[in-house]
């Protein structure tokens, strides 16, 4: 193994199809029009010296090191900013060029420290490389004069010197090493789109400056790492590199955070991760990253990780550390006992959307074949289950229609109930890049999110009242139909015309007009009409949506309404358009694909279908139950009722993430055996009897499937600290239960998946190694996968328009609970925070805050930072208030990353009509000033503390 060295071509790739031939150093080269001479030379294998150029950002032409000579042209143009022309004859090396370059380097080095041996970039410094490349042997100017290098000169303070900025927890800014190439500034602008950095001053006074000469942490910087990656010197360096040193080998793997699925190089020294660097060939992220994937992997070796299996008879007892055998046999005996006592259907399990496809597949196999029932569900139940239902009803597949590259061809972006800048940051960066090129943006969200207003981005914002999605989307459809904006040719060719006619008549009714619905939705009718016109007529229109769509009592209806909009405007089946659910967790798509839902086998095929079930029965050599099993909320209900008594939970924290915490506590408490298989003693583990230590994404092989249906490899870079990868633990548990599963490697599990699932028949580890990644369907018809779906027709045949009647949720405001609470995420934290809270990311977000409008706050006597009591019909909690007009009057908002906030004590039992996906996004609440934690929070904390005790191991006396 060695360090993967990615070629830096110096300038971005040209998309032109017209080709140009020129001669560089005597060799004829043909490249796309618009390519720089620098890139053309590199493609031919000639590296022209450079410092300010890198292929992640546009050419800048400031360092004057990449000069070349062109026959027939005067002077020595910079090769990075000079495009190729037919017939050019270019020379990259001549006496004149050598002299010029050496002179440039001499000037650079005259204001740069010569501490190379002890420098963190030693071995990875482009300045050092260029000094070597141009043959610099001497610096005639010395260091006596004005400089940025030394704190003191001639015994006096050097005003030009600046100390290191160590404020960011993950990287250091050392201004004394800066060569002002501005690669960091341009990466922040062009790649990330935050515009946090600038060059302050002019000439010799030029300095990289976060914000208005602020610290990195104090500036708008979002710590994505693009500047660190772009820096050619040790000016911006990962603290882990400073501490450990340069990596010696690297392995390409996939991030285990959100559904974007960024590809990273895990750069290693032995089994220690030195840093994670985004991989340029990653088709989801194209070399970019966010603060989570790039930096927040410290949880993988956090001291709170549980590495030994533990058991206990009662949840009041302290945990006992035991051997794997003892823990597995204890768990198996309990589950078998429960099944004998209460029946075969009294146990079940929850697959993890954080684990690999292979692991998820094994857990559902264990439940269906080993437990003998279909009581398997996954966290998608509480996030994107309505997506599965809605898109399969209308289009015929339970997945998004595009790849992320598609956004580069989009003219109008419609974001509904999603905040990619916080929850899917790398996709947001790619989207913002397109918006800066002129694409239009419409945002439908109760809050003025970071997407609505960001540098050089201005959205048409429709701030709706939480819970009125269907009314707003039907009103959009009303405008499209009544103003004659329907793409009739598309609808006639691709969709069922009579269903369309019924639907069009329904949406055209006056009661669905923006004017008639404004009283419920709070959306300005004129703005809504404008949005409909832009989406329908503005060119390629793409819809991106998130949990603000699905987590409602009409979540599935909203997904259907979105599909209707895409069909009626013909925005389906080509690059730049489509319907794109932004998936929350890394492998939500995969866990759904792998048969994690109680009613369907892998590949979304209903369990009652005899032909499909028989294939699985033949492969697994066991008879399967043909009835759907319990969904997560149904499991809780059945537990309280006394018919569901054992649960195996892999990699989910249902107690913190599921709604109505008190109800979940009651359900878990009622069960006789809860097995938690996780990295940490999470909240659910407080009610568990068996704890099986889990492994991190760095410790196992497998695959994740991202929001684009892209299957990507996860590669093991270190030995599992707990002893086993999660797939091995499931196999051991199955064996203890008396059900043998034999696999030597996850690739064999994928082979079984491919053999049983028509959309996966072409998927294998060999194929993934060869292509980097594939998007399902990947089979005989599409051997290299399917970036865009429904190209010549819908998977189900004709696209199906379905009527979407708006039905207000039964969670209503009233005199006692006059405000609506909605929930969301923040950039630096992830999901229940089990991972990110155990990293330095807490510097950005140490606690959940309640956002409240100044008007509502003043009425209640709440000041910024005050503790407030947040009460709903389900429960109450306390947290601190943040006063902001990002939320409308009548709406309050919080995140759910911290267990002590207990946001889900507040959320209710209401759920989506089709899938039981909980209605997290609408809860009627009241706010009042408070002195501190509620009684419930105190009692909860006490129980958690008590429950997490681990009994000391007693050594036998000699």
């Amino acid at each position, binding site marked *: 193994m060695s360090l993967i060295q990615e070629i830096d071509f110096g300038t971005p790739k040209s998309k032109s199809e017209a080709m140009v031939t020129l001669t560089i150093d005597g060799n004829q080269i043909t490249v796309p029009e618009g390519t720089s001479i620098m890139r053309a030379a590199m493609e031919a294998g000639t590296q022209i010296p450079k410092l300010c150029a890198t292929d992640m950002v546009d050419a800048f032409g400031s360092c004057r090191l990449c000069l070349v000579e062109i026959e027939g042209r005067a002077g020595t143009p910079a090769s990075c900013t000079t495009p190729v022309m037919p017939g050019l004859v270019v020379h990259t090396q001549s006496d004149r060029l050598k002299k010029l370059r050496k002179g440039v380097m001499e000037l650079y080095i005259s204001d740069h420290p010569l501490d190379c041996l002890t420098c963190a970039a030693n071995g990875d410094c482009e300045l050092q490389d260029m000094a070597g490349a141009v043959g610099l042997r001497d610096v005639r100017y010395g260091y006596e004069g004005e400089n940025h290098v030394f704190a003191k000169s001639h015994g006096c303070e050097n005003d030009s010197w600046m100390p290191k900025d160590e404020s960011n927890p993950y990287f250091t800014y050392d201004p004394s090493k800066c060569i002002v190439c501005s690669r960091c500034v341009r990466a922040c602008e062009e790649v990330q789109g935050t515009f946090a950095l600038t060059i302050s001053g002019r000439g010799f006074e030029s300095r990289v400056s976060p914000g208005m000469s602020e610290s990195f942490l104090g500036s708008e910087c979002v710590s994505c790492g693009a500047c660190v990656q772009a820096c050619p010197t040790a000016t911006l360096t990962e603290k882990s590199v400073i501490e450990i040193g340069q990596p010696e080998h690297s392995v390409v793997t996939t991030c285990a955070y959100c559904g974007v699925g960024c590809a990273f190089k895990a750069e290693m020294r032995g089994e220690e991760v030195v840093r994670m660097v985004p991989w340029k060939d990653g088709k989801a992220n194209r070399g970019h990253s966010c603060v989570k994937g790039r930096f927040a992997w410290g949880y993988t070796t956090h001291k709170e990780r549980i590495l030994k299996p533990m058991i206990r008879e009662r949840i009041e007892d302290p945990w006992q550390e035991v051997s794997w055998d003892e823990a597995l046999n204890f768990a198996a005996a309990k589950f078998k006992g429960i099944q004998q006592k209460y029946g075969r259907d009294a146990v079940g399990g929850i697959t993890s959307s954080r684990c690999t496809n292979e692991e998820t597949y094994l857990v559902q196999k264990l439940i269906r074949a080993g437990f003998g029932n279909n009581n398997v569900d996954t966290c998608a139940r509480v996030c994107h289950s309505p997506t599965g239902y809605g898109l399969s009803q209308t289009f015929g597949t339970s997945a998004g229609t595009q790849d992320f590259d598609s956004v580069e061809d989009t003219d109008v972006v419609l974001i509904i109930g999603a905040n990619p800048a916080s929850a899917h940051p790398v996709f947001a960066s790619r989207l913002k890049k397109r918006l800066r090129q002129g694409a239009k943006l419409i945002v439908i969200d109760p809050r003025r999110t970071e997407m609505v207003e960001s540098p050089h981005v201005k959205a048409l914002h429709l701030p709706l009242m939480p819970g009125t999605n269907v009314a707003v989307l039907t009103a959009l459809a009303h405008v499209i139909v009544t103003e004659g904006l329907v793409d009739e040719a598309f609808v006639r060719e691709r969709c069922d015309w009579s269903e369309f006619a019924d639907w069009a008549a329904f949406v055209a009714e006056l009661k669905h007009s923006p004017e008639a619905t404004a009283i419920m939705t709070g959306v300005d009718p004129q703005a809504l009409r404008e949005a409909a016109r832009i989406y329908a007529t503005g060119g390629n229109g793409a819809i991106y949506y998130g949990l603000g769509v699905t987590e409602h009592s009409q979540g599935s209806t909203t997904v259907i309404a979105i599909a209707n909009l895409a069909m009626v405007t013909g925005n389906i089946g080509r690059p730049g358009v489509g319907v794109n659910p932004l998936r929350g967790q890394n492998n939500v798509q995969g866990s759904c694909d792998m048969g994690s839902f109680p*009613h369907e086998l892998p590949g979304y095929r209903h369990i009652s279908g005899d032909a499909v079930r028989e294939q699985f029965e033949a492969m697994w050599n066991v008879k399967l139950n043909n009835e*759907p*099993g319990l969904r997560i909320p149904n499991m809780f209900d*059945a537990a309280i009722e006394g018919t569901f008594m054992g649960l195996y939970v892999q990699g989910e924290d249902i107690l913190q993430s599921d709604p109505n915490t008190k109800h979940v506590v009651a359900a878990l408490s009622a069960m006789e055996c809860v097995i938690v298989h996780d990295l940490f003693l999470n909240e659910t583990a407080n009610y568990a009897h068996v704890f099986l230590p889990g492994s991190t994404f760095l410790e196992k092989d497998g695959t994740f499937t991202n929001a684009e249906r892209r299957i990507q490899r996860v590669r093991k870079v270190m030995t599992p600290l707990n002893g086993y990868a999660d797939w091995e633990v499931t196999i051991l548990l199955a064996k203890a239960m008396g059900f043998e599963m034999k696999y030597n490697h996850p690739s064999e599990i994928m082979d079984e998946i491919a053999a049983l699932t028509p959309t996966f028949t072409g998927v294998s580890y060999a194929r993934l190694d060869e292509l980097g990644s594939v998007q399902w369907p990947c089979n005989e018809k599409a051997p290299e996968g399917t970036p865009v779906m429904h190209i010549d027709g819908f998977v189900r045949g004709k696209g199906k328009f379905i*009527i979407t*009647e708006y039905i207000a949720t039964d969670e209503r405001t009233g005199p006692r609970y006059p405000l609506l609470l909605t929930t969301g995420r923040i950039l630096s934290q992830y999901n229940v925070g089990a991972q990110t809270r155990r990293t330095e990311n807490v510097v950005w977000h140490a606690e959940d805050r309640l956002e409240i409008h100044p008007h509502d706050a003043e009425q209640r006597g709440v000041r910024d930072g005050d503790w407030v009591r947040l009460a709903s019909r389900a429960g109450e909690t306390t947290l601190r208030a943040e006063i902001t007009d990002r939320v409308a009057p009548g709406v309050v908002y919080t995140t759910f990353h911290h267990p002590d906030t207990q946001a889900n004590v507040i959320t209710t039992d209401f759920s989506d*009509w089709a899938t*039981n996906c909980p209605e997290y996004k609408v809860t009627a609440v009241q706010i009042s000033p408070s002195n501190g934690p509620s009684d419930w929070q105190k009692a909860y904390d006490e129980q958690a503390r008590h429950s997490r005790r681990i009994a000391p191991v007693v050594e036998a006396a000699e």
Partner: protein
Amino acid sequence: MSSSPDKLVYMANQIGKFFHSQGHDRAVQGISEHIWKFWDPRMRKQIFAHLDTGGAGLDPDVLDALQKLKQQA
């Protein structure tokens, strides 16, 4: 609220409300198919038991759909 008849009745009516705008016949078809596809047998058993005692609280389409489903079972 556990999975008492109240909760199941609420869930069934929620399903009914979605299909209601498609007209009675299609609604009955849609509701019965949905419950058959997504409800675990013990939930169906409970709602059928509730149906046998008169099906109080169930909306008309839902009542018809459940009766149809029960006959098929």
